[in-house]
Every structure is written in C-alpha cells, then in structure tokens.
C-alpha cells in the first residue's frame, strides 16, 4: 500500500492490523493507540504527519517502522499547509471573549468529544470565537464546521501536544437587515407566486409528503425527519391541514426557506428548501 504524510492511521490499520504495533513501537506517546476505544476516536482523525508530531518523532521514523509490513512511503513533502497568518478576527481579542474547550481529557478517557463540541459551539454567540484545545489538528472538525457554522478557523500550535484551533462563529446570513422581518424566510404566497417557486423544483427535484391524516405531533415529526435526509438541492413539498407554527419556530434557526400557500380551511401546501447560495 502506498502511504504518505496525509494517510490516515485508520487506513493503515484497515490495510494491515499489525500497523498498530508498528506505529506504537516508534514512540511512547503513541501507545494510546493500543487502547481500542481511543483508537476508534483518533485513528480516523489523525494523519501520519500528525501522529509523528504527537509522538515527537519524524514521519520518516513511522514510515520506516511500517515498511516491513509492505507499506511504501512516498514523501510528498509538506502537505501544502503554508504557515497561515494569524487572522484579523483573532487579533486584539481578550481571552474572556473566547470560549475554550480542552478536549484532551475527554479523548484520554476514551470518549468521542464531537457531540459535546457541537453542543458547546451552538451555545457560542454569533460572531464570537470558540477554541478547541487538542493534541492533534482536528481536520475533520474544521471541515465540518466551516461547511456551515464557522466563518473561518485558525490553528495555533502552542506545544507539541497542544493545538489551539480557533473558530469564528458565523453571523446569521442577513442579520444586517433591520426591522421585524430579518433572519426569516417564511413567505405566504398567492397562487402564481407559489406555482412559480414550485416550478423551480420539478418532479425529480422534490419530495412530496402528505401529513394531513396524522395526529399531532405526527406531522411535525414526519417533516423534521424528512428535512434531516433532504439533499441540499431538493425541496420538500408538504400537504398539511394548517400552517404548522410550532414547526416554523423549530426550524427558524436553520437555513430553510418556507413557502406557504393556504388554499382553504384545512388545506395548506408548503414548499421547504435550502435557498441556493
């Protein structure tokens, strides 16, 4: 198997289980990989380069240890991570304005901190900074948060075993707008407007559900479950008995646009989708 600095430990283990012992043998700090729970948490998140940093050794040492098992190391050089300048939003910020979360003890205990991280990040105010302290660069987390929730991130290596990853929490898309109608996209349409918006999501691009026969809270449960699995480019078309206000409040902090067409008493059509960027 070809490996390089960016190869995940989990891929190596998958290819050959003996890879664990080879890696662990190189440096003492890597011994935690022997613990199956820790391994589960870390292996899929740590690359060979990062493992070397954690172990305080060179990547080449790991490559040498893995070579007898049939792993061929290709030195691709630095993984293109030019040293990033400290961003402006992190300048002149006092420690009080940053929410820190040291996940190292959590990981040491064999637990997966992802859920707690997401929970804490949710609590952070918009435009404020959240900092994860970890023993490696949490690359997947950075990708995950930057997709939607974080404006930007910055990694600061304080010591060999302490990486400070800062996230700047996104402000709501149109928080700049004023008046009582900012941050929401709930639109009561008339027939032509509703038809027009539906036309954007023709048959193949929309999923249709009918929740009229369900007893409450069945409609809300069904719609929430459908929204969970709805692909980004698709819309959900709902036949409903009434305008589902509790649902609208529930999804108000998500980036979902809702078009409502009240045809008559007991007959409401809705189209829900993520607005195209």
């Amino acid at each position, binding site marked *: 198997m070809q490996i390089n600095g960016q190869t995940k430990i989990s891929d190596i283990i998958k290819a050959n289980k003996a890879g664990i012992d080879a890696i662990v043998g190189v440096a003492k700090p890597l011994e935690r990989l022997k613990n199956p729970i820790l391994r589960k948490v870390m292996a899929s998140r740590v690359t060979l380069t990062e493992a070397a940093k954690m172990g305080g050794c060179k990547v080449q040492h790991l490559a040498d240890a893995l070579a007898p098992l049939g792993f061929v190391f290709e030195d691709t050089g630095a993984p293109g991570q030019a040293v990033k300048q400290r961003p402006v939003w992190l300048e002149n910020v006092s420690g009080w304005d940053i929410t820190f979360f040291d996940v190292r003890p959590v990981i040491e205990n064999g637990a997966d901190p992802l859920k707690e991280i997401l929970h804490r990040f949710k609590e952070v105010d918009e435009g404020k900074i959240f900092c994860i302290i970890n023993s490696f660069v949490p690359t997947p987390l950075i990708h995950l948060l930057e997709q939607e929730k974080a404006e930007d991130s910055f990694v600061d290596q304080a010591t060999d075993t302490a990486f400070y990853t800062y996230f700047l929490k996104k402000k709501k898309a149109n928080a700049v707008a004023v008046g009582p109608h900012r941050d*929401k996209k709930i*639109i*009561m*349409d008339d027939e032509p407007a509703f038809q027009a918006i539906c036309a954007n999501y023709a048959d193949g691009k929309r999923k249709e559900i009918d929740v009229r026969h369900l007893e409450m*809270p069945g409609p809300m449960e069904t719609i929430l479950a459908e929204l969970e699995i709805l692909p980004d480019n698709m819309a959900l078309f709902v036949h409903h008995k009434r305008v589902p206000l509790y649902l*609208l409040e529930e999804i108000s902090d998500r980036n979902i646009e809702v078009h409502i067409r*009240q045809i008559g008493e007991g007959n409401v059509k809705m189209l829900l989708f993520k607005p195209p960027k």
Partner: protein
Amino acid sequence: MADINIAKAPPASAVLPFYATGSLAFCALCLLLFLSPASLTTHYFNPHLLAIVHTAALGWGTMIIFGAAHQLLPVICQEDLFSPGMATFSWYTLTSGAFLLIWSFWNMWVGWIMITGGSLVILSAIMYLINVLCTSRICKKYTLQKLFLVTSGCWLLFTTIAGLLLAINLAFPFFSKNHLDILKLHAHAGLAGWFLQLITGVSSKLVPMFLLGKSSKEQLLKYAYALQNAGMALFLLDGYFMGVGNRVIIYIILVLTGSICWILYLYDAYKHRVRKKTDTQMKHTFISMICLVCSFALLPLVYYFPDSHQWALLYGTLLFMGWVTGIILGKTFKTLPFIVWNGHYKNLSGKIKVPLPKQLYNEGLIVWQFRLYIAALILLSAGVITRNLFVIRIALGIWLAVAAVYIYNVLKILMHKTTVPQ
C-alpha cells in the same frame, strides 16, 4: 386510517378576552398582596387573604384556563368548539362574578353582593362544562385526556357551588358543620379537583406534543386518574360526615401517588423527546412542578401544626404563586402568540414575508420574567416561613415586577398589528 377531521379555531372573542382579563388579574393579585403584606402573617381566614386567593383562583388561574381551554379543546378533541357564544358569555359572568366576589371579600361585605358574585361564577362554570362536554363528545370518542378535562370541569362546578353555600352561610348561617371545615373541602375541591386534574389532562396531551416525545405508559395516567379522584372523593365524604381527621393522611397519599404517576408519565415523554432544546417556557413548567411536589410535602406540617399559620400560608403560596402561576407564566407564551398569529397572518397571501409567533413578543424579557419569578417565589416563601414583614414586602415588590414584565408582553402580543413589509 385516521380521520381527517379538521377542527376550526374558535373566534378570537372566545379566547382573547380571557387572556387579557387574566393578565390584568395577575397584576391586581400582585398589587393586592403588596397592599396587604400583613395578611400573609396571620390566620388564613382573613378578608384580604380571601380576596387575594379568589383573585388568584378565579381572576387569574381559572380565567386563563378558560381562554386556553376554548382554544385547545378543538385541538385536543378534533372537533369545533361546541358554542363560541357560550364561551363569550362565560367571560362576562366569570369576570363580573369574580370582581363582585373579590371586592366583597376585601371589604368583608357578607350578603347579597357576595352571593350574586358566587352565583355568576357558578353560571360560568356551567357554561364551561357544557362546552367541554359537548365539544369532547366523550361518550362517542373516549380518550383519557378528555376524561380528565370533563372531570375537572365537574369539580369546578362542585367547587363553585360549595363556595356559594359558604358565602350564603357567612350571611345567613345554616351549616350544622364547622364553616372552616367546609372551607377546607371547598379549597381542595378547587385545587386537587379542578386545577390538578385539568393540568394533568392538558399537560399529558400538550407536553408530549411540545417536546415531540411519546410515552407508551398510558397506564400511568389511568392510575393517576383513579388515585387522584379516589383520594379527593374520600377526603370530601369523610371530611363532610366525620370531620377532617387523622385519616386525611391516607387521602393525601392517594392524591400524591396519583400525581407521581402523572409526573412519571411526563418524565417518560421527556426522556423520549426529539426536541432537545428546552426553552424558558418549559423551564417555568419545571419550577412549577417542583412547587407542587413541595406543597404535598408540606401537608403533614399543615395538618399537625394548625396553630402555626405559616405552614398553611406557605402551602397556599406554593400552590397559587408557585404552581398555578408558574405554569401560566410559561404556557401563555406557548399559546397566545400562536392564536394571535393565526388571526393576523393565516389568510394572507401574495409573496408576503411573515414574522414568527415568537417575534410577536420580547423573548429576552421572558428570561427576565423567569429569573424574577424564581427570586420572588423564594423570597416570599422565606418571608412567610419566618413571618418577616420586611422580606415579604421586598418579595412582593419583585412580584410586581414579574407582573409588569408579564403584562407588557401579553399586551404587546394582543396589540400586535399585522406588519407586511413592502
């Protein structure tokens, strides 16, 4: 296949006047308490406290419950409200009846004004009960929640009749029994019959709905119903024929066990909930449940130390200011904004961006309402236990602030103007 019967929302006149009057009554309640803090340090049978308790029970608790029930009955029963006219009529009788009653208690005018007030309140209880019975059509389509609603309506009627008899007895004594003993029966028919069972029934339907959590332990609610009613009925029969005696502990345990079954049911729904966010409105409910449990725990003290009035007063404080008030302070903002929203926006169309119900009031103030409510409740309880007038006064000052914050938000919702941006 479930039926697709759609219940229409009742007209605003069957709902909104109750909310407006109820929130004004809450302000009046806090004001009356503030004007008469000393009534919380003496025996509970005093004119001011009678006026205050009836402001809490009728003007505040029952008033808001009537409004909310007229709105929720169609939701719970999947039927149109039987008679919106009767609902509106019950507002007139309840408001005027409660006003006359409270006014005459405050001044201790026993006689026809008090009796007229009591009669009007009975009339509104009858209207309400008819509406509940006919909307629920309980005989045709039975659910346990409907049974709680109907039974609690019956208890309300019973309570108001007993109350009227007490009012008559004050002016024209005719009871062979001790007036204060009958008063205990009247009070508990109201608390454990009307409030407790109504709240049990409505919450066992709404809490799972709000939390999106189902409980499969419906059996618990059956036990709750049987135990609460058995406890109450036995208490009344025994109390009336033999006088309130040592056996009261048995009845307390019955009602308590019933309530625990209900709370376990809610807890089960909470455990299985889909919505993980707990909002401030739900936190109000949580504190109010703690108050209910505490007041049960106080009952033995109330019974065995009748000469220390503070236990009875603390019991009443926790039930009215903690339990009933706590639930209403939270649930108002789970119902009222939605009702008003429907009135303003449901039928709009034409590419119009609309606000959310929660944008009809100031959400930040709800958090402050919650903090002030807890502070006021704790201080008031401390003041009542220690009979410290100074602490009671401060607590009542905070209660006024709670009332101000609450009514500001309620009025903001009620006076909402349809806003349609260009």
